[in-house]
């Protein structure tokens, strides 16, 4: 049991994809690159098929684009949110494709490692602060960390708290996505381990454990598809919220 779980954790840990490759990718980045290539093919095909009366793959891409552009950008940032769509849309499609690809065995989700999620969260951090600084200047932006009307004696404390909260954002953003994907795969793995063990030492309990584990892994697989979409949405909406906060830093 313990060795099987250890094996599962080893399988899910970040390690070189191939010992022999000249440029050694990790197991996660191998699948990440495949997801990115699939995504590129998808969006390029979809953009060539953009018609006033949509059909086929154009429909799916359009629905997703419209969802992010209106359902996330415009809803959170107002009409000017459309300007941020290329960035936020890239985030959404990247996370979504990686999350979904991870649900097709033997692929791993490119977002199931902190190497990916922290990098993208740091990009979000740099972009939203960059937008805020570009809008009102570095010193005013820093000053705006303390809301106007804060009592003077509280201002230093609030400033420190706000600063910490801003620097924690890439961390929480990254961990949230990573932990969801990683935990989902551990759950799936655990029930697979149960099934393997039940088959290996076939006893009376196997008759109960085997079908139940199978049922659970089917249910969890469906749940993971839902989580994949949900986490892409959450990552995207938080990005939009952070950018919106930076645009309206002085309010």
């Amino acid at each position, binding site marked *: 049991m313990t060795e099987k779980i250890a094996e599962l954790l080893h399988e899910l*840990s*970040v390690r070189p994809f191939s010992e022999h490759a000249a440029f*050694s*990718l*990790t197991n*996660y*980045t191998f699948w*990440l*690159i495949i997801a*990115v290539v699939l*995504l*590129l093919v998808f*969006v*390029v095909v*979809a*953009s*060539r098929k*953009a*018609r*006033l009366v949509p059909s086929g793959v154009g429909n799916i*891409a*359009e629905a997703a*684009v*419209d969802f992010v*552009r209106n359902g996330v950008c415009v809803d959170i940032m107002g009409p000017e949110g*459309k300007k941020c*769509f*290329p*960035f936020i*849309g*890239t985030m959404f*499609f*990247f996370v979504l494709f990686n999350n979904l690809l991870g649900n097709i065995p033997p692929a791993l989700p490119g977002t199931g*490692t*902190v*190497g*990916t999620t*922290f*990098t*993208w969260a740091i*990009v979000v951090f740099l972009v939203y602060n960059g937008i805020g600084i570009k809008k009102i200047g570095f010193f005013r932006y820093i000053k705006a960390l303390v809301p106007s009307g804060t009592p003077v004696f509280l201002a230093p404390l609030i400033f420190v708290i706000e600063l910490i909260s801003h620097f924690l954002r890439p961390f929480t953003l990254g*961990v949230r996505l*990573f932990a969801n994907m*990683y935990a989902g795969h551990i759950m799936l793995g655990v029930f697979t381990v149960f099934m393997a063990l039940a088959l290996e030492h076939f006893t009376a309990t196997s008759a109960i454990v085997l079908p139940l584990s199978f049922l659970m892994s089917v249910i969890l697989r469906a749940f993971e598809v839902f989580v994949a979409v949900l986490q892409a949405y959450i990552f995207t909406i938080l990005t939009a919220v952070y950018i919106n906060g930076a645009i309206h830093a002085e309010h």
Partner: protein
Amino acid sequence: MELIIPNTTEMWVNVVAFAVLFIVMWKFAFPPITKMLDERANKIRESLERAEETRVEAERLLEEYKVQMAEARAEATQVIEQGRKVAESMKTEILAKAKEEAEAEKAKAIEAIQAEKAAAMAEIKGEVADLSVAVAGKIIGSSLSKKDHEALIDKYLAEVGSLNEN
């Protein structure tokens, strides 16, 4: 703990992935789609606006036609009414004229009849007088004086006249 310490190779792969993806999405993939979405939204909005305009125009036309219809109907009623009045007055006029003519005709006829009657009377009177004289002469054998004759004739005539009147 090693789970949340990122691998630097992975981070570099992701930096490149982000750069490539963002540029391709921003410059090539998204513009046709968003442009088309906006175009479609505009087209739908325009179509709706045009439909609304058409509807308003149709309603206005309908209202106009209704007014025209009512006017036409009122006019027709008026024309008919006028025609009826004209016919009515013509009828009264014609009737009055006819009555008048009939009246005149009747009066003329009565006049003619009376004249005829008077003439006939005069003639009869002469005849009867002569006859009576002759008859009387024959009966009596003597001639009555002219004065007696006349008295007799008048009496007789009065009798005849009263008979005639009945």
